[in-house]
């Protein structure tokens, strides 16, 4: 390291010092050029407009359901996939997907608080489209919004 490099001589720096400095600048420019190319590629491959992403698409499923729910308060949540069963790898993958769908439902339905429980009287059911979910006991489907989304209410 050149921490102890003496101050510049009066007659200007030696050629090797200048060349070393040039090499340093060249390295930075090389690094910047590589990133710049990656940035341009990334920009060119991006979709023409937003809202075609996974989160926006998933969120659109909840638009009608949101209107049917109370504006505020706490609502229950049940959904697919079942995090139990299968091999450990399957369990981990299912558990992650289950959690992600729950988070997305919470994100879409804010400011309602969604809890993974059937304790509240109103429960959002978020199942795989076309599946036949087993309902939590004591609940009936109040409204089916299609695409695996149902609103469950505790039977009186």
């Amino acid at each position: 390291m050149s921490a102890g490099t003496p101050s510049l001589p009066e007659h200007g720096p030696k050629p090797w010092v200048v060349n070393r400095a040039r090499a340093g600048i060249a390295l930075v420019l090389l690094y910047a050029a590589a990133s710049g190319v990656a940035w341009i590629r990334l920009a060119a491959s991006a979709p023409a407009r937003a809202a075609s992403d996974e989160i926006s698409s998933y969120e659109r499923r909840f638009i009608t359901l949101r209107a049917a729910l109370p504006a505020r308060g706490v609502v229950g949540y049940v959904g697919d996939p079942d995090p139990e069963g299968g091999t450990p790898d399957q369990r981990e993958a299912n558990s992650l997907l289950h959690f992600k769908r729950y988070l997305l439902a919470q994100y879409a339905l804010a400011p309602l608080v969604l809890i993974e429980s059937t304790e509240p009287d109103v429960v959002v059911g978020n199942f795989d489209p076309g599946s036949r979910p087993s309902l939590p006991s004591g609940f009936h489907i109040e409204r089916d919004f299609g695409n695996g989304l149902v609103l469950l209410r505790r039977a009186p």
Partner: protein
Amino acid sequence: MTLALALSLLVSVAAGVIVLRWVWPDPEVAWSWPLGTALGAAFGLGLSSVLLYLWMLAFGPTRGFPLVESSLLGVAAILALARARRSAHRPSPSGDRTGHPRGYLICAGGLALVAAVAAFLGLVRRQPHGEWDAWMNWDLRARMMFRGGESWSTAFSNLIPWSHPDYPLMVQSLVVRSWLYAGGETMAGPALVAAAFTFGTVLLLAAALLAFRSASQGVVASLVLVSTPFFIVHGASFYGDVPVGLFFLATFICLALDGRHGVATRRFAVLAGLATGLAMWTKNEGVMFVPAVVAGILVSGWTSGWPRARRTLAGFGLGLLPMLLVAASFKLRLAPRNDLLATLGIERTLGWIADPRRYFLTLREFVAHLATFGNNGVGSATWLLIAYLLAMGIRRRDGDRLWTATAAAALALMLVGHYIVFVTMAYDLPRLLNSSLDRLLLQLWPSILFLLFMVIRTPEEAGHSRT
């Protein structure tokens, strides 16, 4: 809506610049427009966030806020104008500046910035809600506050602990603020906030080095920053790491100003305290930053003399105090207990502390992540900087010894602090190291660049550019 969003940013930046100009210790230190604007913008974002938080405590997230904030800006602008007329014009500080950067450096810097902005916009179009943590924590909280109306405090319900309701409010409140200006929710709001922090950091780094060292030095340092892949990619993910990094950087810049002008004025130490407080208001890591900076100042006192360090410490504490009160009010009134702390058990923690494998694993990952940080295919930014340092050499300047010791010690202590947190608190250590370590390094990255480029010789000093 786009105009309203632009106005929200403009009001923040203008307010920050006006307030900074107001408190700038003229005539002891001449005002620098590039540095003053970039630093003022950082403070402006922070102050807007705090102002909205206080407004929400009183009235909730109501539509009257933009009007009141804009009116306050108008009053501040009139006062600042009146003060400016009274004060004499002075030239900007010259710092160590010599000559102008070569044309190709300016071209490279400009092209890199344009490419980075294009990439940022591309990433935002691809993921308008940001990455997982953004919609799970930051944007969710913003939605809950904005949509919650009078019940906005439900956003901090302990029924959803996975959303980290104890996280400080800088990013979320600025997103809410953008929606209040826009008159409704738009994903352009979080994107604008993220862009302001990401490119604000680049401009602040360049402006600071321009003021302290030379234009070339500012260009080269900002070139490295915008070319660090994770900085742009993560900036566009709408997380809090780049924002907290901006306030870390602002702290060190204020400490550098204090290092050079601390004998004449204590105001920069006060501003450093304020910037640290804003970091604390951005992410919980900012809480750890407070003792790290205090310890850094004490270290500098040990090496350079206590009277000066005491002065700096007093000013720093004065600037930090208001943010301590704001953060305390949030933690005491709204935030539930931190989930990392809440799940700690004494027996388990003691077991982790006594486990040498955790120390080794954490150290190994620290070294690996540091060595590969900023890898863009050509090489890592760490190796690039080491090579650059060897090529250019170090410049010693007595006036900078005090604050460079403070900054180096604070940055080192932050790394040590993160190491200790990983070893003693992480439940799933390998997973947490893998998912968090680069983000923690990124928070410090702009500050590391600032410190390094303050001590590395400029291209002019190394004889590369014309003078």
